[in-house]
């Protein structure tokens, strides 16, 4: 089943085009990798999916993004859309709330007031994000004072607390040590049973380890979409893809 369908997407900032001519489908329970150097349009793509373009008056999105068979540009309840999509940023954002409140925030925004329910959600999400054992004795301390790697797992727990159908990770490992990165990657492998994942990364090997299919973005174009293994070993349509994954530029 197709979870997210993108056709002829174009994103512009003022006069400058950030991304154009992007079309692909993402299947449910797939880990879909997006690789490419800086300024390829990867982050802009994620912003278009959950309608964060609303907050950027310069950003213009044309073309079509269909999520769960609904055109996102026609959704009036964008809050409902964003709740179904969890986002993890390059730099971890532990909100200046307690660890507990960080994870309980989304359910609370959604009207959940019962302490018992929240307790369950918090423990479940922290456990799934591989953070529970490290913080279970100090849930009241500030989330923004955790170490970088812990904060990133806290961010993932917070995204999971939304009970998302789609999880979008934007270069999540940029500020995280290799050991934590591996732990998070294991978490993602588990999660794919329940959610669809878009993994934006500039670590080519990370895409290779995790993604079923991968798209290669370069200078605002989607150069190639294919099975991840094919990008590395099989036929590629565009020689630049092979050059990039083999580290000849970028």
């Amino acid at each position: 089943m197709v979870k997210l369908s993108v056709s002829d997407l174009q994103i512009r900032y003022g006069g400058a085009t950030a991304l154009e001519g992007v079309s692909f489908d993402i299947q449910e329970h797939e880990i879909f990798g997006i690789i490419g150097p800086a300024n390829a349009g990867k982050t802009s793509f994620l912003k278009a999916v959950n309608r964060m373009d609303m907050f950027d008056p310069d950003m213009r999105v044309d073309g079509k993004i269909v999520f769960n068979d609904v055109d996102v540009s026609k959704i009036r309840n964008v809050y409902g859309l964003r709740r179904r999509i969890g986002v993890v940023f390059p730099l971890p954002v532990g909100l200046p709330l307690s660890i507990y409140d960080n994870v309980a925030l989304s359910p609370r925004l959604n009207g959940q007031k019962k302490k018992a329910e929240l307790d369950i959600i918090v423990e479940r999400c922290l456990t799934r994000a591989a953070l529970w054992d490290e913080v279970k004795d100090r849930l009241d301390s500030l989330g923004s004072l955790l170490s970088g790697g812990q904060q990133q797992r806290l961010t993932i727990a917070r995204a999971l607390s939304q009970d998302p159908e789609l999880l979008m990770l934007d270069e999540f490992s940029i500020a995280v040590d290799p050991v934590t990165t591996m732990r998070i990657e294991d978490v993602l492998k588990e999660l794919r049973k329940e959610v669809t994942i878009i993994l934006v990364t500039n670590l080519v090997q990370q895409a290779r380890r995790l993604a079923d299919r991968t798209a290669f973005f370069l200078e605002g174009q989607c150069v190639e979409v294919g099975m991840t293994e094919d990008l590395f070993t099989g036929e590629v349509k565009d020689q630049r893809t092979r050059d990039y994954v083999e580290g000849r530029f970028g």
Partner: protein
Amino acid sequence: MFESTELNRRNETRQKLFRIGLGTMTGILILPVVLIMSTLIYKGAPVISFEFLFTGPTKGMTAGGIFPALLGTILLVVVALLASVPLGIAAAIYLSEYASDNWFTRAINLAIINLAGVPSIVHALFGVGAFVIFFKFGTSILAASLTLAIMTLPVVIVATRESLQAVPMAFREACWNMGATRWQTIRRVVLPNAVTGILTGVILEVSRTSGETAPIMFTGAAFFLPLLPQGVLDQTMALSLHLFVVSTQVPNMPEQLPFGVALVLISMVLLMNSLSIALRMYLRGKKKW
């Protein structure tokens, strides 16, 4: 290799001269403060007593205490705060969190800066026209406080806006991405982290409001009243005006009395200021990111 040349020595002498010169200039700065405070304490302190603070003036104000003026100043400040704090905070939240950057917002910001630059005597005349005459409040605590409120509104707005904007954008974006509305984000993440800065601004406003004379002398503060005010539509005495009166308007005034009044007024302001500084230091220590 490390012997100093003629040029080195000249540079060093020059640097010493500048260090001493700039240091002296800085030292001169504290002179007025020291002089004012020491004069006030030297001449005013003997007047201060429980009697002085808690009884009314007698014998044509040449004797007795300052209680009606002290109470009046507190009343004026409290009513002014009740008006300006909610309005100022609401405006600052709108400007910082909602308004997009267009000509209208820029015009409002310009208006706020200009409002801060309006001389207090002009505010006073505006207060007479608007509150005393047009809204028919008469010369009253209400009219005087509203005049003070308008005068100090820019302070509240700017302090609030600054502390809201000190909350990192990433926190807001994280919330929005979760499906929070702007208001939910403000309520749960932005305001709790800005409240300390807002409080500091409010206290600074108090210290400024309590010393103002011009805006209240036409709108609600009285020369002398035999009775304490019974409500916000009565006139009141105030410390700042009382100080003006006892130093310039009353014959045969004992020399020390005005110093006593001034000492009480400045102590009130300094107390507020140090409270604000202490609060800021305490909260900076508790910074959450």
